[in-house]
């Protein structure tokens, strides 16, 4: 019996609702929300850029210090193909690194939650790794792993794994003990408890980690490129900064910002789609 069949069966048994004001109201609310979702950020973006432009013009900021947004946009447009190519490289490293960090982080979080031993032995090292400036150990990376994509990806992992681990652990540990007992009584094995209860229950928290990390991943890639790379936005940035090509540097940053925002909204969309059942996604009651 498929979900489709169930649906058909339900349909058959159900009297049609006399009218559907709720549906209509929902549609209206949704449309308004969509307008707000697009309009507000745009307005605030435009306003922010306008303020920036005004500051630059009124204080007569020289472009090598702080270029005006119009200048940055012009520069972006001028160098767009090159910027996009570099972004592609950085984004690739960020994507691969983040994917590894996500899987590794969730697995590590699960191991930490499942085993006191792992908790007490692995976690402190992760904390230490998170709590030290990577600049000191960066050269070591280069020496051991070599230049290029690999070390860049490792940089991304190092940058992004910790928020995911912490949020995974918090989420996994928050499972309702009674729910765990329930599935235990249904004969669930540890792995099933993890998969069927703890992980779904942890998803909202994991998504918080993902939001932090996914947007941080390109920054990690760029820092990796600062240390050692011949390509990517980081390399471009260093060149631009060193050569006092501040508008180009800002153009690169602008591209990163757009990319970051895109990732952010993508993550939010995935979240909405993945955990529609969660209170945070169900919309507000009475606008509370």
């Amino acid at each position, binding site marked *: 019996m498929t979900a489709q069949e169930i649906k058909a069966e339900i349909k058959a048994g159900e009297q049609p609702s006399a009218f559907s004001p709720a549906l209509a109201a929902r549609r209206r609310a949704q449309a308004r929300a969509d307008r707000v979702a697009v309009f507000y950020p745009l307005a605030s973006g435009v306003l922010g850029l306008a303020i920036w432009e005004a500051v630059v013009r009124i204080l007569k900021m020289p*472009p090598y210090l702080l270029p005006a947004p119009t200048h940055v946009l012009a520069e972006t447009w001028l160098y767009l193909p090159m910027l996009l190519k570099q972004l592609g490289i950085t984004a690739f490293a960020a994507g691969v690194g983040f994917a590894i960090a996500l899987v590794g982080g969730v697995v590590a979080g699960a191991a930490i939650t499942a085993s006191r031993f792992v908790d007490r032995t692995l976690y402190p090292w992760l904390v230490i790794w998170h709590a030290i400036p990577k600049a000191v150990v*960066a050269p070591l990376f280069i020496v051991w792993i070599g*230049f290029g994509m690999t070390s860049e990806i490792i940089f991304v992992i190092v940058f992004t794994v910790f928020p995911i681990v912490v949020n995974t652990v918090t989420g996994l540990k928050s499972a309702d003990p009674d729910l765990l007992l329930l599935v235990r009584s249904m004969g669930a094995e540890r792995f099933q408890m993890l998969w069927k209860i703890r992980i779904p229950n942890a998803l909202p928290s994991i998504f918080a980690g993902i939001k932090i990390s996914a947007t941080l991943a390109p920054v990690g890639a760029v820092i990796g490129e600062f240390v*050692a790379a011949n390509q990517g936005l980081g390399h471009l940035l260093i*060149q*631009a900064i*060193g*050569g*006092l090509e501040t508008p180009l540097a800002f153009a690169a940053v602008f591209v990163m910002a757009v990319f970051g925002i895109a990732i952010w909204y993508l993550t939010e969309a995935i979240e909405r789609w993945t955990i529609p059942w969660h209170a945070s996604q169900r919309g507000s009651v009475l606008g509370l």
Partner: protein
Amino acid sequence: QKINFLLDWAWIPYHTIFLTAEDRGFYREAGLEVKIEQGRGSATTAIVVGQGNFDIGHINSTNVAQAIGKGVPLKSIAVYQHRSSASFAAMKEKHTLKGAESLKGLKIGSTPGGSDALSLAIFKKINNIPEGAFTVVGLDGAAKRAAVLTGAVDAVSGDSHAFAAILRGAGKEPSMFLLSDYGVPLLGFGFAANEEFIKKEPQAIKKFLAATKRGFQAAIKDPKASCEFMKTKVLLTGTVEFCVDYYMGLMELSQSPDDPNWGRQTPEEWSKLVAALKSVDEIKSDKKSDDYFTNEFVP
């Protein structure tokens, strides 16, 4: 008379000169109260001095040229290192760098942006080095050092005074290759001042350079003592030997402070520098070389 003086970087051995001048009271005798602040790279120092947050900076003159070319209101007021330190460095046990031929096929670590990449580009241009004659790997400062010491790259491009000292400090014999020997007309360290300040306080600049020159003279007399003195004054890590090596490495490429022309710049060297920068598209404006420097204040 107060002067805010910004260095090119956080304390580096050769900064002992300024500490000496201060400690011996040269500035005070000149009627100056000099506040020395550590910097974060010549490019940043150029901007910050240009913005007027500081009056005078100790900056690599190539960066000064670059900054002026970009419109930073700055002028070079003295250059004491007329030959750039830009060089290739390798461990002698692995490679001996001699002549452009010896670079063929090497993997060279270089920091993008900044004067390092610039000198490399000009070197290639001037010596008609074909694309692909050697491989360049972009590395930041610390990575460059680790990479050359472990053989991850064959050579690095960077300041000779720094890398000679670093390689020797790690117990390796360095093989150095000075780009200035191969027609690279870049300038090394000197002083630049904010244009506003030049207009307002010409006398102070004059006094500052004169007092600083005394610092150069005093510090060079006993490099070891200068280094030891510096370590007592500020946080400077590394051994005294390393410090002396580093400091003297720079001094060897610099004008002697006893030279009566110390600090004096020539229009030729500036126009060569600017032409070289133009040749690699680093400077696009067509300012005259007068706009870049002035010898008014040289003692």
